[in-house]
């Protein structure tokens, strides 16, 4: 390919058109302190809160504190190159990140710069990271379901589009896995997913990205990572930057799912900043505005009214607890902000009930309206079944004689727990969830040994796929149960051919 000189000069000419020979007037200040991701500067009398500043060596900072003689600045980047006495100038802009369709499929840092080695992201649009959440008239109530593909969640704590559902639990109880599985299940759902990882080990994030790639989920996902080795300001702004990228799609009428993994670490980063900025510490040494930090972030998740395009942003914040203590400061805060929580129980996790969703303490305050009719019908009694099972379970361990009703309850409970188990990265479409839960609540599983339940499930799915896919299709299309006579006879047809495992003696196994 030959390069033509005229073309190049024409190009340069075009670019230089924007150049104006103007005097640069900058307001500058002098750095008086720098350290731990924070700087203070004297001068800058007219700086605004949240304004972007540029240090002498090209690093940017954001104004956080306005004091009588100084401004407190969080440094967005490497602060080791900044020295006392350096000059710092106002830019007149507020912090922005790039947004656009080209962000999808990429791994970026909290400034929106690519970190996946796939080159520059071609987008010329930017949006401020702090934005006011949609107001009352711009919203409508949550009514469309967001299928996570996880039986225990879709049945017990349904999530609607535009909802904020907290995932909470101890370390290593599968919080991230639930979020990742939910992203995987959005394939072909015309949903944009954003996974914001805050303070997660880089190796773990790499693993998640690999998983997303393997299941083809990166085609509709943006991964934002602020690793533990980044300075605290970058961890603090990451969720806001992620929300801004999501809002771009929401404003275009699309559905967005955003995962904040996790807000505990963001709160810790903000605590660090605030203490270094000498803001007064409050409970657990968090600053006074830690509640507002999270509430203004999660308020940006919304279901927009039809006038606004009807887009939605569903937020799945994650919070880590210490030894199951949900009454610590950050967990209580975020529980009260969100529309419900999925509580993961470490005891259940270690005893093999995975995903370890604790049905008793998990709730969804608005998702019920978003659940499809068929699911409502089959899952209605599930929570009660589980509650009475757990109550009787400890009682029945004494092995005394049990009456028929109690025994039936125990059997049903054991099978319910078994049905709600689900392996990693294998989300189920809603019609299949309805099918197996229908079998459960209508007693078709009562005669099956507990160990056989999952095999029964797999086989009945295959059987329906092969012979009665029209019934599944009806559930999917109408959202309601098909003709129950047809459904019952199909299930009976399968049940009669199902062979129990050789181990036999199911009654002994079941308890």
């Amino acid at each position, binding site marked *: 390919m030959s390069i033509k000189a005229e073309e190049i000069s024409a190009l340069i000419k075009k670019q*230089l058109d924007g150049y104006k020979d103007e005097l640069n007037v*900058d*307001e*500058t*200040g002098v750095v008086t302190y720098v350290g731990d991701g924070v700087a203070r500067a004297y001068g800058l*009398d007219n700086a605004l809160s949240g304004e972007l500043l540029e240090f002498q060596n090209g690093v940017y900072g954001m104004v956080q504190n306005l004091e009588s003689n100084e401004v407190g600045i969080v440094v967005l980047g490497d602060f080791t190159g900044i020295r006392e006495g350096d000059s710092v100038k106002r830019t007149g802009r507020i912090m922005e990140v790039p947004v656009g369709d080209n962000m999808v499929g990429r791994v970026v840092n909290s400034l929106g710069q690519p970190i996946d080695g796939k080159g520059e992201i071609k987008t010329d649009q930017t949006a401020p990271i702090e934005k006011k959440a949609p107001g009352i008239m711009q919203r409508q109530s949550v009514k469309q379901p967001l299928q996570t593909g996880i039986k225990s969640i879709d049945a017990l704590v349904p999530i609607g589009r535009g909802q904020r559902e907290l995932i909470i639990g101890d370390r290593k109880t599968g919080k991230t896995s639930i979020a990742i599985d939910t992203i995987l299940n959005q394939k072909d759902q015309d949903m944009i997913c954003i996974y914001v990882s805050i303070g997660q080990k880089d190796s773990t994030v790499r693993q998640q990205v690999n998983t997303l790639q393997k299941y083809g989920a990166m085609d509709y996902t943006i991964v934002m990572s602020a690793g533990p080795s980044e300075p605290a300001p970058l961890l603090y702004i990451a969720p806001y930057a992620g929300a801004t990228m999501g809002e771009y799609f929401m404003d275009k009428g699309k559905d967005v799912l955003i995962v904040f993994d996790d807000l505990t670490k963001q709160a810790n980063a903000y605590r660090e900043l605030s203490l270094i900025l000498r803001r007064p510490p409050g409970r657990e040494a968090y600053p006074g505005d830690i509640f507002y930090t999270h509430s203004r972030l999660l308020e940006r998740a919304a279901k927009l009214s039809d006038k606004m395009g009807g887009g939605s942003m569903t937020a799945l914040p994650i919070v880590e607890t210490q030894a199951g203590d949900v009454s610590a400061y950050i967990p209580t805060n975020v529980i009260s902000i969100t529309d419900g929580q999925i509580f993961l129980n470490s005891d259940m996790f270690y005893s093999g009930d995975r995903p370890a969703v604790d049905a008793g303490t998990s709730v969804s305050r608005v998702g019920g309206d978003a659940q499809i009719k068929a699911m409502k019908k089959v899952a209605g009694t599930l929570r009660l079944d589980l509650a009475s099972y757990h109550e009787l379970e400890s009682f029945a361990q004494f092995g005394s004689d049990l009456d028929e009703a109690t025994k039936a309850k125990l059997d049903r409970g054991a099978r319910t727990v078994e049905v709600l188990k689900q392996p990693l990265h294998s989300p189920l479409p809603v019609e299949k969830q309805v099918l197996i839960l229908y079998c459960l609540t209508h007693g078709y599983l009562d005669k099956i040994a507990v160990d056989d339940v999952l095999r029964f499930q797999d086989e009945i799915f295959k059987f329906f796929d092969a012979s009665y896919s029209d019934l599944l299709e009806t559930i999917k299309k109408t959202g309601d149960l098909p003709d129950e006579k047809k459904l019952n006879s199909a299930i009976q047809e399968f049940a009669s051919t199902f062979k129990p495992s050789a181990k036999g003696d199911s009654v002994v196994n079941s308890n």
Partner: protein
Amino acid sequence: MSLDKVTLAKRYSNALFQVLEEHNELETGNAELMAIKAVFQNDPSLSMALAGPVLDLKQKDSIINSLIDGSTSEYVKNFVKMVYDYGRINDMVAIIDEFGKLYDKKQGIVRASVVTAVPMNDEEKDKLTQTFAQRVGAKTVDLSAKVDSSIIGGAILSSDNVVYDGSVRAKIKEVRKLLS
């Protein structure tokens, strides 16, 4: 929490300024304070010695007295003594700086420093001073000039936390940004 240096300097200088203004001693007072400031700045160990434990009180007193001997203004004398007695001698320079700002404001003086690539002649300086005085609305502009060849051409003028960058270096930078 103890007061920070700037707040403290503002308070002392304000009081001093008001007293001098009332007694019409601003001119002389300002000149004397500038002289005292020069003494402190020329010898950084002076304020350290006055604030430190090495010298005994008599020795410190004699230093202070010799410092204000030449002063004609009673109020400047009192001021130096008071600052010393209150253990704020370390903040002396900052207080006088703040006083200077108040004085400049009253007299309509704006201080500015200019960096050019080649030395300016007097005519150029005058022109720059006049133009700048008009722009900021000052009676007089106190201009200090520096030469830095790395800015290639043009001039950078800075005054009161504002930088007016008309250098060739900044323009080239701008062009580079447009082309990248």
